[in-house]
């Protein structure tokens, strides 16, 4: 019986640890200085994996040079992502 209680206790402890890990990660995210902080902040707001698929559908790399205002610029990209 005691062994059983110990096992359940370890499970609860493990779950508490995982939840605490997420909370700590979340609470410190706004306080990370420098490039890592910037990178994490940006990632929080974008579904970046989708970008990769969109870019790959666009085609030739040369087209990518046609940037902000072009056919595949940020504005067009965001419009595309809305429908993704």
């Amino acid at each position, binding site marked *: 019986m005691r062994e059983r209680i110990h*096992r*359940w206790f*370890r*499970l609860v402890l*493990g*779950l508490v640890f*995982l939840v605490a890990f*997420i909370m700590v*990660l*979340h609470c410190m*995210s706004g306080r990370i200085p*420098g*490039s*890592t902080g*910037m*990178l*994490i*902040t*940006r*990632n*929080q*707001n*974008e*579904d*970046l*994996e989708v*970008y*990769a*698929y969109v*870019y*790959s*559908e666009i*085609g*030739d*790399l*040369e087209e*990518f*040079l046609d*940037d*902000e205002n072009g056919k595949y610029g*940020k504005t067009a990209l965001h419009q595309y992502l809305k429908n*993704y």
Partner: protein
Amino acid sequence: MGKEIEKLWKSEDYWAIWFAAAIFGGIITGLITMVPKVKRWTDNPFEAFPGDLGLWIVVMGIGIGILLTIGVSIMKEDWKKFLGGYLVVYALAVISYVAAGQSTVKAWGLGYAIWGLSFGLLIANTVGTPKWILKGARSEMFIKTGLVLLGGEILFSEILKLGMPGLLVAWFVTPTVIIFMWLYGTRWLKMASKPLTIIIAAATSVCGVSAAIAVAAACRAKKSELTLGVGMTMIFTVLMMIGMPPLCKLVGMSPAVAGGWLGGTIDSTGAVVAAGAFLGPVAEKVAAVVKMIQNVLIGLVAFLVAVYWITKVDRDPNAPRPSLLEIWYRFPKFILGFAAASLIFSFMLMPAMGHEEVSGVLKLSGIFRGWFFCLAFVSIGLESNFKELASQVVGGKPIILYVVGQSFNLILTLLMSWIAFGGILFPVFSG
């Protein structure tokens, strides 16, 4: 021959193909018009289920359960026990997706794979996984079905559009690094587990988790070997995602060269885009495209590994070379499903349905693929124990293999990226 025909409805390999075909068929014919996906959330986990999404996730779980149960019952297995266990595994998969959907967790690149493994391992190594749940934890069936679905996403017809520089970086470096790591692991480090060696090599050089899953299935690796390969890959992916962009900036690397370098070395697609985005739009786009070209190699690598395993690794050295028929008997058939899905989508559906329609189908099948992989990782966790995992790391050889292989990958990819994007072979990408 009769036995081989019987396998069509009795083997899990073939059923993976039938399951995926049913899903593709449902989407193409318009029976499935929406596939629910847990949403991103920040403070409140219930934000992950806006509106009636929670209900749809339950409906999908039951739908997948019914589909799989049909297969399991035709394979003459106890479908009631499977269904009971499956529902618990699915519930854990939903929890894993919720954990991975927290915006900060997502920002760090800690995806559903690591959460599925964590929850599964936690249960297995504390209270122990009840036997009735294990009946539904069919990790291989989930992996194989997910891989056939992934096959549809590998569009050969799109590759040529992506440009020569990207092809050069992705397709020269990847096989070179795999061969280097295989030789280094087996001949120099003399690693005890050959499947673990090839899993780490594929995860490092191709595309992390997906490649690890495909290769592990191709060489019939143990679950603990796949768990270790995936775990290591995910930890190093986070480190590379946050470490490499500042380094590129520090040395003043051109955005296109940096993008090629990041795309060719960082293992997860999301992390690649995140790292590239830090250096600006050109680096982001080049990184993403190089990664996508590299992802195409998953199927080819899995195919070659399966053939190599049958003809070299698993073969008795004193036995004669296996005949083509024997290779066929022992070949993991779901890889053929993977290849068939890729060819059908590339050369039949793309011309017939058009780019936009096919993209719509793949968008939905991609979400299904994610669910199947998530179910697989939960199942692997539920079936694994820490002692077995620890035994794989004894001596630190897997870590040495990863670090040395990844270092070689970093150097070679940088060289190729400079040649391809730095104005040596092709015009300079100025951005």
